């Protein structure tokens, strides 16, 4: 893996380069912040070890500039400093550094901190891969727009709200919230197993076709289950499986595929059910106009303890303004994305 070392002191740069190369990294040295920023913009570097005080752009300023730009992937920054004390560490982290190393560094500590960086970056790669997979599955149905982006945000908000609820405090922690954000986009992955003639049919589905359509929950659940069995340590796969399998269940037992009741449905499935329906209601489809937020809200309230878990409905009501903001934000971004074409069309 490539590492960019930003250091104006030749000696420290040499010692750092030697240590990093011996650990197994491919090192490039930039002597100042401006040169470093040009390297980062090339997109080749995901790991940066930078000195704090340099002529021209300082390490702190470099952190800020890297963080302020849009990039294809996260850049992990370790700030190398001879400054000690909590105040300076906080200043560095506040500017966007992920970690810090005090001069003179010890190779073992450098190796350990680099490993943390690589692990964080690999998690990001995992997250992006999961989302790409979900987008791929969704791509056959061009009408859903940014459904996955919105849905994971709704799931995150609901889980976050439930984390302070006495009944769920011990179940829903930060990891649960992160995992539902990560895995909820996979809820409809089983649709890859549904024929185009049914998935893309413009009109109403027959009972038989709807029966086939319903199979997507089991197809998705089983697919993720087989992966989860091979990787029992990856608990997020179990949540992904539960969501794919149960997001169409209803707490009154009238849902599919198994007609589970109440708490028989995993909490993540109950959360995903509401998030999925809210987004479907507030999005435009060929067969319906978009409901406004209040209409969607009334419908959700009317389905309390029927389709939806009452606690999840309460969580939705507590955070409805955030739902509305996300719904509006993504619609705004979608408009921004098509504006250049619209302007061209007017020329």
């Amino acid at each position, binding site marked *: 893996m490539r590492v960019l070392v930003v250091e104006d002191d030749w*000696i420290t740069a040499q010692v750092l380069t030697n240590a990093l190369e011996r650990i197994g990294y491919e090192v490039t040295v930039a002597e100042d912040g401006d040169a470093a920023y040009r390297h980062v913009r090339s997109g080749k570097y995901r790991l940066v070890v930078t000195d704090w005080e340099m002529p021209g752009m300082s390490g702190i300023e470099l952190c800020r500039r890297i963080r302020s730009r849009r990039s294809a992937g996260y850049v992990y920054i370790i700030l190398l400093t001879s400054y000690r004390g909590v105040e300076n560490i906080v200043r560095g982290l506040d500017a966007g550094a992920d970690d810090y190393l005090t001069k*003179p560094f010890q190779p073992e500590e450098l190796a350990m901190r680099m490993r943390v960086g690589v692990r964080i970056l690999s998690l990001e790669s995992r997250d992006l891969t999961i989302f790409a997979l979900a987008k791929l599955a969704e791509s056959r149905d061009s009408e859903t727009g940014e459904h996955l982006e919105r849905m994971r945000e709704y799931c995150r908000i609901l889980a976050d709200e439930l984390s302070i609820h006495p009944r769920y405090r011990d179940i829903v922690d930060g990891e649960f919230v992160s995992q539902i954000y990560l895995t909820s986009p996979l809820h409809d992955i089983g649709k890859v197993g549904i024929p185009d003639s049914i998935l893309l049919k413009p009109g109403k589905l027959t009972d038989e076709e709807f029966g086939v359509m319903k199979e997507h929950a089991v197809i998705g659940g089983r697919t993720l289950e087989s992966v989860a069995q091979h990787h029992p340590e990856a608990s997020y796969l179990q949540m992904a499986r539960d969501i794919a399998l149960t997001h169409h269940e209803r707490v009154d037992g009238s849902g599919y595929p198994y007609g589970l009741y109440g708490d028989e449905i995993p909490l993540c499935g109950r959360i995903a059910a509401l998030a999925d329906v809210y987004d479907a209601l507030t999005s435009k489809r060929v067969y319906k106009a978009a409901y406004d937020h209040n209409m969607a809200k009334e419908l959700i309230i009317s389905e309390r303890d029927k389709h939806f878990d009452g606690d999840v409905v309460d969580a939705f009501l507590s955070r409805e303004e955030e739902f509305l903001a996300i719904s509006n934000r993504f619609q705004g971004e979608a408009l921004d994305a098509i504006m250049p074409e619209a302007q061209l069309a007017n020329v």
Partner: protein
Amino acid sequence: MVNRLSDDMGPSLIDPQIFDQQQLLLRCMGNLEVAERCLTRFRQRLEADVEQLQQSATVGDTGEVARLAHFMKGSAATVAATALSQKAHSLECAARDGGTEEIEFDRATREFMNEAERFIEAVARLDENS
């Protein structure tokens, strides 16, 4: 290249506070060539910077003294010249205050110069013994 350094962990001829060669080798993960190169470069740089620092201190350019002292603090720490790094740190602090405490600034400058001389002499002894 003169092989002044050795990966023999036996007792050093030099006070490790002045220069801890084993520490430098550890930091270079046992790479004698890199350690030698860094030591040579550091000594050359130190000799030049001491002269520059002396001139800047004489004309009261505390900003330049602080910059040089900061640079020396980091480099000296990296090559395991611990005492020199500490003296550079004290000088940097005194210079950053704008040298307002003149006695303190003069004392810090003098102590840094003395320590630099000790370091240069110590490395010269290593050269003689190599």
